[in-house]
C-alpha cells in the first residue's frame, strides 16, 4: 500500500507532468523546457547507450537530446497522454527513431565506419572505450523482447529501468494497487526479458 503522504507526492509528480504537458501544448516555452528538463537525464542515458560510435563522432549526445526533445515537442499534439509511462514511451520511441536515422546517415558518411562499430572489440579484445552500451543487435533484441510485454508492465519496467522512478510513483502511474505490485511486475518483466534474450542468443 502507498502511504498517504507518498501517495500525495506521487500524485503531485504525476499531475505536474500532466500540467506541464498541457501548458507546453498551449505554447508555453517555459513549460516545455521544464517538461523536457525532467526527462533530460534518462533520455541522455538512453540515447548515449544506443548511439553507435560512428554517429557519436558526428553528434554530441547533448545535441541529440536537444534534437529528440524538439522532435517530441513538435509531435506533442499527436500524443495521447496517459501518464508518465506513456510519455516516456513516446520520448524513447522518438529517440529510437532518431538513433536509426543518424546511424544510417553515419553509414553513408565517408568516415562513418559501420553500424556495427560498437560491437567490434578493440584490437586487444577489450571493449572500446567509445563503444555504445548496446550493440545494434542487442538493442534490437531488447526492443523485440520488450514488445512481447503487456503495455502496462512494459511501462512499469521502463519507468524503473530507464527513468529510475520509485515503485510508489510507478504504481500510481501504471495503475498497480501497491508499490509491491509494481515491483513484482517489474521483476517478472526482467525474468521474461532474460528468457527472451537468452533464447535469442543475446546472453552468450
Amino acid at each position, binding site marked *: 500500500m502507498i502511504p498517504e503522504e507518498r501517495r500525495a507526492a506521487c500524485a503531485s509528480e504525476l499531475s505536474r507532468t500532466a500540467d506541464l504537458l498541457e501548458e507546453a501544448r498551449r505554447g508555453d516555452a517555459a513549460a516545455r523546457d521544464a517538461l523536457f528538463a525532467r526527462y533530460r537525464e534518462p533520455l541522455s542515458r538512453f540515447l548515449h547507450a544506443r548511439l553507435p560510435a560512428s554517429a557519436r563522432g558526428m553528434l554530441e549526445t547533448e545535441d541529440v537530446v536537444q534534437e529528440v526533445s524538439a522532435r517530441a515537442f513538435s509531435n506533442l499534439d499527436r500524443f495521447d497522454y496517459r501518464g508518465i509511462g506513456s510519455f516516456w514511451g513516446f520520448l524513447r520511441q522518438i529517440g529510437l527513431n532518431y538513433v536509426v536515422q543518424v546511424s544510417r546517415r553515419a553509414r553513408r558518411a565517408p568516415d562513418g565506419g559501420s553500424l556495427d562499430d560498437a560491437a567490434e572489440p578493440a584490437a586487444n579484445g577489450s571493449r572500446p572505450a567509445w563503444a555504445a552500451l548496446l550493440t545494434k543487435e542487442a538493442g534490437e533484441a531488447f526492443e523485440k523482447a520488450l514488445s512481447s510485454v503487456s503495455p502496462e508492465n512494459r511501462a512499469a519496467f521502463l519507468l524503473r529501468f530507464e527513468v529510475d522512478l520509485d515503485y510508489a510513483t510507478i504504481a500510481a502511474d501504471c495503475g498497480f494497487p501497491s508499490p509491491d505490485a509494481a*515491483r513484482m511486475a517489474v521483476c517478472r518483466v526482467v525474468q521474461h526479458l*532474460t528468457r527472451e534474450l537468452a533464447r535469442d542468443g543475446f546472453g552468450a
Partner: protein
Amino acid sequence: MTDSERDAVRRIAASLADGQPVDWDALRASGALAEREIGALRLLESIRSGRPPSGASPHADGLDIEILEEIGSGSASRVHRALDRALGRPVALKLVRADAIVPEAARERFLAEARALASIDHPNVVRIHSVELVDGTPRLCLELVDGKTLERIVRDDGPFSPEEVARIGIDLCRALAAIHAKGLVHRDVKPSNVMRATGGRTVLLDFGVVRDAGSPDRGPHPGTPVAMAPEQFDAAGETGQATDVYALGVLLYWAVCGRYPVEAASYEELRDLVRAGRRTPLADRRPDVPGDFVSIVEKATATAPSSRFESAGAFERALREFLSLSKGPGRRGRPAMPWIAGAAALIAALAVWVAIASWSGRAPLELDARFFVTRDGVARGLSSGDSVRVGDLLFLEARFNRESHVYVLDEDDAGELFTMFPAPGYEPRNPLRAGTTHRLPGTRAGKSHDWLVSSQGGGAETILVVAASEPIEHLESFLRGVPAVKPEDASPARKVDVSTRAALYRGIGKTAPAGAAAESHVESPSPAARLEDWAAALAREDATDRAVKLIRLRNAP
C-alpha cells in the same frame, strides 16, 4: 530451464529491479545459471545502470551518499535512510555516533561488523554494499530492508502464532548457520534486530557486537540483557554458537507471547535470575502453545550451553519437525481462527492446496479460509454444496502463515465473473498480515460489511480464494477488467437487517463468456477460463508460494 535456474533468475531479477549489486563472478562460480542467462541479465543490468556490463563494484569510485532521514540508533551508531546518488538506489547508512562513549572501540566494531557482513552472503542476513573511511571513521553502506522489525510487528499487531514463529525461527536458524559457518557469533539476536521485509523475507540485522570465535573472548560481554545467555553475564564465560541459540530461543518465546522469559527490575536481578535458570515457563504465559513448541524453546534456552541445540542446524530441524507435526489433525496448539458467535462448521471439500517452496526454501504458504452465512441474525459456517438465498450475507474469515495477497472471485453458472476481494475503499487491503484472522470483505468507516447474495432462481456459485505471498501481477492486471462488487448499503427493500452492518452488493456487472479451458500458464488470464481451471492453472505456476481454495454454493430456487 530448471527450477533452480528459475529461482536464480528470479532472485537476480529482483536485485536488478531494486538496484542491488550482483556479484556476477560468484554467480558464475556457483554454476547456478548458464552463461546465456547471465549474459542476458547483465545486458539488462547495463540498461538499468546506464553503464556497460561489468563485474566491477558499483562503489569503485567512492561513495556518493545523500542522507535522507534517521531510521534507527544505538549507543554507538545511528542508521539513516540514504540515497546512493551514483546508482539512484536507497541504502541504509550506518555511522558512528559522534557522541559514542568510546569512539575508538566503536570504530573497531564497525570495521569488524563490515568484515563479518562482507563474508556472509545469505538471504536472511542483511547485505553490505560497501564500507568507507571518512576522516578515519568508517561508515557502512547497507542494504535497506523495507519492512518492519519483529518488535514493531508484535507491538502493533500482537504476538504471532507458534507456527509462524517457527517459520521465522527456521529463517533465523539458517542465518545463524551461515554466520557460524564463518566462525562468527552474532551475540545480539533480538526482536529489534530482525526485520520482516515486504514480501516476507526475514532478515537479521546489526552485527555491531559480532565476535570472531577464533579471537580471545574477554568479558564484559556486550549484548542486550533481556536476551542474553547466562554466559554473557559472566566475565569469564565464553560466548559461542550456543549463545546465539539461546538468544534465538528467547526471541521465539517473546514472539509468541510478547514477554521475555526472565523479567526483572534491575540488571543485577536479571543476571541472577538468568544464571539460576528461573524463567517463567512459556506454557504459563501461553497455555495454548503446543507442547512440542514449548519443548523446543526450553531446550534452546537451557542454562547450560551444552544442554541447548548443538547447532543452528539442529535447532532448525526441530522447528521443521514441529511444523510438519502441527499440520496433522488436532495438532494445532490453539484454534487457528477464533470463531465468531454462532459460527461452526468447517468448509472442507473442494479445497485445493497449493504450496510451492520459494527460492529460500521456506515453508509453504498456508491458507485457512472459511465462509459464513448470516441469516436471520445468526452466522453459520458454509460447506461446499450448501445453499444460499437472496438476502443472505456472506463473509469470509481467512488466516495465513505469511503475509499474503488475497483475491476472491465469484462465478455463477452463466459465467458471470465478479471480484469480491480486493474491495476498493475497504479495510483491510492487500497485503493481509500473517497470524491474524481477517474478516472479509472488511470495514468501511469503522462499519463491518458483508457480501449480499442477490442471485436467485437456482444455479450455483463458485467462489475462488487465492492467497499468494507476493502479488499475482497478471491476475491483478486481469481483474482490472472484471466487475468488482460495489459498496452499497442494503436498502430496506431487500429485506436485509441493516442495523448492524451494511452490505456489499454482489451480482452486478458484465458477462464474461465461459467454457474454454485455461492455459497451462496464466500469463494473460483468459476471461473464458472457468474458476476451477484458473485454480488449477494458478496452482501450476511456480512463480511464488500460493494457496488456493474453491467452494461451490447453490442458489436456492
